[in-house]
Each structure stands twice: as structure tokens, then as C-alpha cells.
């Protein structure tokens, strides 16, 4: 099927509902982006999602969309509680891959001439790289505790405070987790890895606030121009990948059992009310909690390292969590559908929640301005902090973009990087990169990624999420 795209306005494009599509598709993108989008399978994947039973309103894609497994990356879909389904393809392998942002009272002048040393300190503090592991593996009881309690476990163990908890999506603990729904193999993979970054596009990045677009929101978030920030991008590690693997197998069977016709096997699903969907939800919640705890432990590692480096407590450095967002998740939320408040299951696959002002799930200190939306770019340019809006609530089930998205394959990136002193190139820009694997850095060169400012511009102009601040990297630890 060649997917048709009909332009609705400057930023929105519709895939008309045809064939087995139950609803239309809606893509947020600029005209320039649509030319690229048409080159890959992602519009077809949006159309495929629209085939799923109980889908409400439309199958959505954010401007960082590209093809994924089942759902496109950047895909969002909400499902009716009675007639809808739950699909692991709408969550992804790296369940609760997400971003934590810390702010500080330090400024660029505090690290002038010291970035080389500080980048090394951060590299040593946060386990990173292929198969990276924590200093100590958890035992079975500890792991089960993590899976149920998420960040609450980490706080109890001394890796954070209640102040962290209050500014995390879901307060860092997803309800409904049941470790008995998780395989022994997933637990085996998860035990040694809590508090580690992993590899690929995961990172720990020291940066600074380069520009502020919305002063009141920046003030509410604790962001000041020139102040240093730390961003941690990671997820549920091997534990989450295994949970996804295990449940894709189960859901392929469930799809047959419930007569769900799949345009793509990776869209396997079960009715939300079924025992299979409920069991997957319980396992997924375990992975979500694992990832929250993972980012909290790494937050602690960063705080400890910076505290020692600057000879001051992290409290006196003002190293506080701003927010923590999930960008691979499915969860129950209340949204207005045809004028009526309705409980729906929202899937976000490479998309970020972006709740608007006044929403009770936005932390109290941010409620008047809207939820922070953390959108990392590549390691050579910039990242953005946005805020959620009322328009997001009415148009995208309170969802926004999550990052830049690749537009160059890993092998093409390695070719482009061959023979170039990438580390030095970035140092000449004032950015210190640390990694145990040169090939990872080659694969992650800035030009391998789209320009995240283009992605964010679409969200801003469409009023789905508004720009608050731009961050520029200073030191990046890559896995």
C-alpha cells in the first residue's frame, strides 16, 4: 500500500483511513521533513497502527519519526479500555528508555579549563559501554524490590531523596508491577546492570543553558542562563530487552487467539481486558521501574562525583533533578475524547509525555507552566527543554517528540568518521567526549543525526510543546 499524505496545515499531515485502517493517521512534520519521511516505511507503520482494534481518534507520529518495530519511532496511539489492545511493539525493546535532567548553581566559568578532568571523572563515575555493569549485582530479593518500587527503592538505599521523586514522571514508580510475570532470563540480565548506562545512543552529558526562550517556565524549572546541567539518557538495559522479547512471543500467540489481524507481526497485541495484556502490563511495569531506578542510581553517581570534584555537597551545588521523562511506555491516562473524560491506554514509542498547565500529574511546582519535556539532540550541537501545553492535551494525548532521530546508518557514519580525529574535532568546539569504544563515537557523530532544532520547531509552532531553554554540551560520556 502506498500511503497517501494530505496536508492539513503547516505542521500536520493526514493519512486518510483506507482499507483496514480504523482511524486516520496524523503526522506532525514540516514540509521539508515530509520529503524525507516519504523515503522510509514510517508512514506505512503509522497506517498499520491505525488497524489496531479500539484505537481512538488517530494514529499519531511526532516530527522525529522514523521507522521502528511495529509502531514507528515517534509513534503515539491511545486505546479504548473495553475494545482496545496493548502492544509491546508500541512500547519498544528498551522499555522506559528515557531522560533525567539535573540543574545546578554551577556555571560555565566554574569549569573553565577543567572540562578535561571533569569529563574523565564522570566517565569513571558512571559505568558505561557494551555490557556495562554496576559495582555490585543485586540479589533476587533486591531485584524484586527494584521491580516493584522503582525509584522508591533507590531512595531507601541512599541513592536519592524525596525531592527527586516528586519531579519524576509517575513519581518514578509505576503501579501494577508484578515480578512473577518476568522471566528468569530477564532477571538474570537485570541483576548485574542496575546503575549502568549501556551503549549505543545512551549518554551522560554535562552541558549548560545557552538560551532561554520562556523566562517564567525556566525559572519554575530552576534553569538559569549559563548554568550547568546534566542529562542522563538510558533505560531498562538487558532486563527490558528480554521482557520485550519474552512478551512479543506471547503476544504473537495472543493475537491469533483473539483474532487480531496484524499487518506487521511486531504489532502483536492482546485486548486490554485479557489476561495476556494484563500480564504484559505487569511485566512492563517492572521494566519501567527498573529504568527509573537505573537513572536514579546514575544520578547519585554523578552527584557523588561532582561533589568530590568541586569539594562541595551536591546540595550546596544545587544539583537537583528537574524532571525525568519516559519515551518508550504504555500507560493508563485520562483524556478528553469527544468531550468526555475517558480512561485510555496511551502508547508512546519514541515520544514523550507533555502534559499542559494545571494537570494534576504535573509536579506542583511546575503546574502553572506545564510539564518539562526533555528533548536530547546529538553530542555536537544542542538539546532542548520544552513545556507541555493544553494543545498537546487536546491533539496528541499529551505527547510530544523525544529526540532527533538518525538519518545516517551506523556503517555510513563510521565511513564518514574514518580517518577523522572526532574526539579532537569536538574538543575544538569545546566538547570533551569520553567513551571506551571509538566505534561508538564514530557511529554517534553529530551529522548522523537530524537537527533536533527542526524537530522542536515543529512542536513549538504547532503549539504542542513550547520551547523553554536550549542546552549545549560540554562533556559527554558515551557508552
Amino acid at each position, binding site marked *: 500500500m502506498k500511503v497517501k499524505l494530505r496536508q492539513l496545515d503547516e505542521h500536520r499531515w493526514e493519512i486518510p483511513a483506507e482499507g483496514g485502517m480504523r482511524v486516520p493517521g496524523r503526522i506532525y512534520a514540516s514540509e521539508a521533513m515530509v520529503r524525507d519521511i516519504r523515503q522510509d516505511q514510517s508512514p506505512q507503520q503509522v497506517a498499520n497502527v491505525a488497524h489496531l482494534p479500539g484505537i481512538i481518534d488517530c494514529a499519531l507520529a511526532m516530527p522525529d519519526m522514523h521507522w521502528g*518495530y511495529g509502531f514507528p519511532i515517534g509513534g503515539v496511539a491511545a486505546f479504548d479500555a473495553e475494545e482496545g489492545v496493548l502492544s509491546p511493539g508500541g512500547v519498544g525493546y528498551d522499555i522506559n528508555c528515557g531522560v533525567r535532567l539535573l540543574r545546578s548553581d554551577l556555571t560555565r566559568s566554574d569549569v573553565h579549563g577543567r572540562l578535561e578532568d571533569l569529563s574523565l571523572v564522570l566517565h569513571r563515575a558512571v559505568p558505561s559501554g557494551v555490557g556495562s555493569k554496576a559495582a555490585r549485582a543485586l540479589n533476587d530479593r533486591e531485584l524484586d524490590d527494584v521491580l516493584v518500587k522503582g525509584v522508591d527503592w533507590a531512595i531507601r538505599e541512599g541513592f536519592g531523596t524525596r525531592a527527586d521523586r516528586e519531579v519524576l514522571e509517575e513519581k518514578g514508580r509505576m503501579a501494577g508491577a508484578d515480578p512473577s510475570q518476568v522471566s528468569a532470563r530477564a532477571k538474570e540480565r537485570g541483576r548485574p546492570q542496575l546503575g549502568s548506562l549501556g551503549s549505543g545512543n545512551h549518554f551522560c552529558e554535562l552541558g549548560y543553558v545557552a538560551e532561554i526562550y520562556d523566562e517564567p517556565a525556566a525559572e519554575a524549572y530552576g534553569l538559569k542562563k549559563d548554568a550547568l546541567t546534566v542529562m542522563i539518557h538510558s533505560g531498562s538495559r538487558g532486563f527490558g*530487552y528480554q521482557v520485550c*522479547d519474552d512478551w512479543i512471543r506471547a503476544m504473537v500467540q495472543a493475537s491469533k487467539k483473539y483474532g487480531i489481524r496484524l499487518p506487521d507481526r511486531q504489532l502483536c497485541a492482546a485486548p486490554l481486558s485479557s489476561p495476556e495484556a494484563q500480564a504484559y502490563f505487569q511485566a512492563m511495569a517492572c521494566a519501567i521501574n527498573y529504568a527509573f531506578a537505573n537513572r536514579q542510581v546514575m544520578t547519585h553517581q554523578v552527584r557523588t562525583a561532582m561533589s568530590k570534584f568541586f569539594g562541595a555537597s551536591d546540595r550546596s551545588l544545587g544539583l537537583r533533578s528537574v524532571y525525568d521523562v519516559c519515551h518508550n511506555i504504555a500507560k493508563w491516562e485520562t483524556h478528553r475524547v469527544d468531550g468526555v473524560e475517558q480512561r485510555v491506554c496511551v502508547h508512546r514509542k519514541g515520544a514523550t509525555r507533555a502534559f499542559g498547565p494545571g494537570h494534576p500529574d504535573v509536579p506542583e511546582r511546575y503546574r502553572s507552566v506545564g510539564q518539562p519535556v526533555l528533548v536530547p539532540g546529538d553530542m555536537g550541537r544542542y538539546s532542548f527543554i520544552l513545556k507541555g501545553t493544553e494543545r498537546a492535551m487536546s491533539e496528541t494525548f499529551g505527547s510530544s517528540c523525544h529526540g532527533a532521530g538518525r538519518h545516517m546508518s551506523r556503517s555510513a557514519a563510521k565511513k564518514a568518521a574514518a580517518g577523522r580525529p572526532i574526539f579532537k574535532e569536538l574538543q575544538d568546539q569545546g566538547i570533551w567526549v569520553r567513551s571506551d569504544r571509538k566505534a561508538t563515537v564514530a557511529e554517534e557523530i553529530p551529522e548522523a543525526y537530524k537537527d533536533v532544532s527542526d524537530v522542536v520547531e515543529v512542536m513549538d509552532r504547532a503549539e504542542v510543546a513550547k520551547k523553554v531553554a536550549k542546552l549545549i554540551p560540554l562533556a559527554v560520556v558515551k557508552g
Partner: protein
Amino acid sequence: MRPTRGHRQVDHTADLALDLWAPTEAELLEEAGLAMVAILTEGAVLASNGACDIRIDAVDREDRLVQWMNEVLYWATVQGFLLTSAELAVEHDAVVGRAYGQTAALAEVRTELKSATYHDLRVVVEDGAWRARVVIDV
């Protein structure tokens, strides 16, 4: 003339795709496992000092390929067992047999892969040869 059995990586924006071919399904599966290990170790030369028995249940040929590749991935990244060869057969949709490889070899794993996936997955028999395309989430 192309060898009767082999694999090649296909350029893919965000992930990794493999084209595989072999005279039989069993050899296709072995080739897929070896390709996985070659990617994980960046082509390291490995010894063969260990073995294990295999039984992987699946529902069809596509599922067999993905399950088998993920088993090889699990062995490599969790147990440090890197496949060097395998004697495989397909019995009632399951993959059975024995795998040989290098043990205690976690240090040889240089790349992180998440999973072999069902995306764009094709396993076909054409002109008497088995061919497959599989995408791996990186």
C-alpha cells in the same frame, strides 16, 4: 559466483539488517548465529572449547530464526559463550541440536545489540536455496 552459504550486512538507518542464504534451513540458522557473533565481536577469531545442547520451540520458520538468533545473543552477552559452529535440525517447528563455541568470552563482545526482530522478516526458499532478511535492533 556467490558462495552457496553466507551473509551480508545491509545498510539500515537506525539499526542493522542481515541478508542470509544457505542450502538448508539448518545451515541458514547456523549462518545467522555465526553472523550475530561476528557482529558482536567485530569479527574476532574464537576458539571452540565448550558446547551445549539446544532446544528452542517456535511456531514457524520466521519465529525459529528470531528465537535462535536471540538465544545466540543471550549466550554471548550474558553467559559469555560465543558460538563457533552448530549441528542443528528442525523437529516439529523446534530447533534442536548442539552448539559449540568459546566459553568465558564476555570480554570479546564489543557491540551491544538489543534483539533480532520480526520487522521486515523474510524466510523463503527460492531456487532450492534458503534465504532470509532479518533486522536487529541496536
